[in-house]
């Protein structure tokens, strides 16, 4: 697959002739994904050795994929935001808000009258609006994304608590629950949704004007503006898209847990960002990869799974995850520095 990063890092210095082949191969876009897949494979090998049957089974695979799906959808939206040079810290709490909003008494009553999809659309609409609010403040209010979305992180969580009164809101519609229990071809519907969002995201980033604008703005916002790209409007859309994915993830979360609560999605923004960055999207913008993000999400989920199978404490898991994030970012910086030195 051709990623938008079809150019090797510009200034790959030929330091020692013999050493260059492998690194220069691995530093290419395909190579970077190969490297990621190798890392994933390595974790799987460890899983098989330590967990045996408990790890290497279809059932466990489906568990892993199902867990990866919700965070994966968030990460796809996040890939666009980061590629454009921004950051969205609010997706986790916005997702929580959407689960609450979609399960209020009023929404469920309406869903009861019409169709359970009303809940899904409500979640998507709420997420999109929250994203657009972020985008409007960032693009037109010129507040930096970090602060804007940090504020949204707090307010969305607070709003969710106010609406739900900090109560867990059960999903009443059996049809809704039934739908999210479907397993077409033996694969859970959540996984299908994740796959569909990823494919759509890949096309959007690599094959459409939307994606090209995103990369261009992340690479050089001023040059993009001077070339006639409406940078502000596009920024608005990008955060709207991130909000939309938070809404989709919210609906999926409802399907998985059959309940809406303001605590859903706590700290998930960090996991999404970590998966995106580990996947190879540049934190400074200008380069993004959906394939990398998907693999990044899988790496984290499989890792958690292996840890859990081995009864590792959650605290130790956190430490291990932190180490992985730092290692990935260090690697990335080396590439970034190289291409800047000319």
């Amino acid at each position, binding site marked *: 697959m051709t990623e938008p990063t*079809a*150019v*090797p890092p*510009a*200034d*790959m*210095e*030929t*330091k020692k002739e013999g050493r*260059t082949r492998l690194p*220069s191969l691995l530093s290419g876009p395909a190579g970077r994904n190969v490297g990621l897949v190798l890392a994933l494979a390595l974790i799987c090998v460890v899983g098989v050795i330590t967990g045996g049957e408990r790890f290497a089974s279809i059932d466990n695979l489906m568990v892993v994929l199902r867990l990866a799906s919700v965070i994966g959808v968030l990460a796809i939206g996040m890939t666009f935001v980061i590629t454009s040079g921004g950051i969205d810290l609010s997706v986790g709490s916005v997702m929580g808000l959407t689960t609450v909003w979609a399960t209020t008494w009023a929404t469920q009553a309406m869903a009861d009258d019409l169709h359970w999809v009303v809940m899904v659309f409500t979640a998507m609409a709420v997420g999109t609006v929250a994203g657009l609010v972020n985008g409007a403040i960032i693009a037109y209010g010129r507040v930096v994304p970090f602060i804007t979305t940090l504020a949204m992180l707090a307010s969305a969580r607070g709003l969710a608590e106010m609406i739900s009164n900090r109560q867990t809101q059960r999903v009443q519609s059996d049809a809704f629950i039934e739908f999210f229990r479907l397993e077409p071809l033996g694969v859970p519907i959540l996984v299908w949704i994740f796959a569909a969002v990823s494919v759509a995201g890949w096309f959007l980033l690599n*094959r*459409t*004007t*939307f*994606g*090209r*604008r995103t*990369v*261009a703005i992340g*690479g*050089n916002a*001023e*040059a*993009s*503006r*001077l*070339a*006639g*790209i*409406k940078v502000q409007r596009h920024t608005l859309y990008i955060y709207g898209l991130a909000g939309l994915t938070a809404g989709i993830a919210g609906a999926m979360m409802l399907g998985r847990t059959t309940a809406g609560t303001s605590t859903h999605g706590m700290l998930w923004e960090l996991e999404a960002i970590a998966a995106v960055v580990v996947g190879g999207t540049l934190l400074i913008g*200008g*380069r993004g990869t959906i394939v990398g993000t998907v693999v990044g999400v899988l790496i984290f989920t499989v890792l958690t799974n292996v840890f859990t199978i081995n009864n590792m404490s959650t605290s130790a898991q956190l430490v291990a995850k932190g180490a992985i994030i730092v290692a990935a970012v260090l690697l990335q910086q080396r590439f970034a520095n190289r*291409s800047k*030195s*000319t």
Partner: protein
Amino acid sequence: MVTGDPTAPLLEMQGIVKHFPGAKALDGVDLDVVPGEVHCLLGQNGAGKSTLIKVLAGAHQPTAGTIRLDGEQIRIPHPVAALEHGIATMYQELDVVDGLTVAENIYLGHELASAGFTQRRQAAARTRRLMERLGHPEIGPHQEVGALSAAGKQVVSMARALSRDARVIVMDEPSAVLDSGEVDNLFRVVEELTAQGIAIIYISHRLEEIRRIGDRITVLKDGMTVGRNLPVASTSTDELIKLMTGKDVEYAFPERPGVPQDAPVRLEVDGLGLGDTFRDVSLTVRAGEIVGLAGLVGSGRSEILETVYGARRATAGTVTLDGRTLRRGSVAAAVSAGIGLAPEERKSQGLVLDEPVYRNVTLASFARMARAGWLDERAERKASQEQAAALDLRPRDVERSIRTLSGGNQQKAMLARWLVHGCDVLLLDEPTRGVDVGARSEIYALVRRLADAGTAVLVVSSEIPEVLGLADQVLVVSDGRVVHSAPAQEIDEHQVLDLVMEGTSA
């Protein structure tokens, strides 16, 4: 080694080879420099000049070759080593840190310190002295560099080179962002330095500068030395151009066919103003006409272009294109109405450096080439390749990242962007900055062809001969006002300079 020169060489580079993945930038270059001379390095865009000096500066490691200083072989594994050997470099692309002050920039990496505390007072005093020496006492040590003009940044970069006790100072196209007054200043400093026995390696595409200050010339072509230690005084311009390009190039401006009286007015600017940067600028450009804005750097010419383009929001006046008034402060409106701008600072304003050449070329038009939001990359590649061929882009490969192109070729890619987009009004800010002689006349011819096809062109250049030679009508800008307007044939360089000076002193 006996070279037959009266003085022993201070610096010798021999058989320098530098390979990049997929590109051979240097393929056996020799250069030797004697103390106290101005050694000019000539060559077309992409010939390898910048790469050579980056090897000398320790920014690149050569694949092969030797470097000798005072006859002793040295290695330059990193930039600090170069400075320790007394080799200071002013890079082609400005390398100052915008967020730091002037003094902090100058002493970046060799901060004046005692016991770990930086000596701010001393650094400031020395900075003031350096600035005076460079003829810019108005640039204070505590000013933030980001707020300076491009020329101001260049001065800071030069001060930094001077602040080192250098024996060799390399200047990669220092004059590109300077106007004639500033260039005089630069040359005065260069003469001072050479009188102290410091050697200067000077890169420029302006042959007249080389005639003024150069002693000897080394010519590069396709990464090889093709002319070595040619004395400036006895080498003709034709000979140099022939060495550089391998063919005879006519170094002339295209003919002016004359704009017919009844040609419609394309661009009309009326009473345009931008705060106190410039005010009351009115001008018209007719279809097929090239209008040039001459003036000093900092006189507001670039700002005028950017305001016409909507990149800055005008505080007064209107811009009218083919009878329709444009919305203020909207680049998108200007572009869709058919205006294009090739901005002054390529790197920060023009290029998405890590993207391939073709995506930079189609940055303004990929959306139009797309079908219902789906990119048509094949069409993009094809259009870019056509322009690459038409402009003789080197290398021709449009897939490589634009960062790896030489400065002049990046400029051509900027022009290609608007050629692909096609526009009715073209605004060019320093269109030949960093462009070699051969490509220069190609660009002049191209701009003229565009005009002949009905495009209205508004061009800003710090090189007065360029404005006079290329434009039909010349406007002299001084201190944010248009002080004079005349057909290009009826005004000469001295008059323009006089007008500029009058304007500033008034």
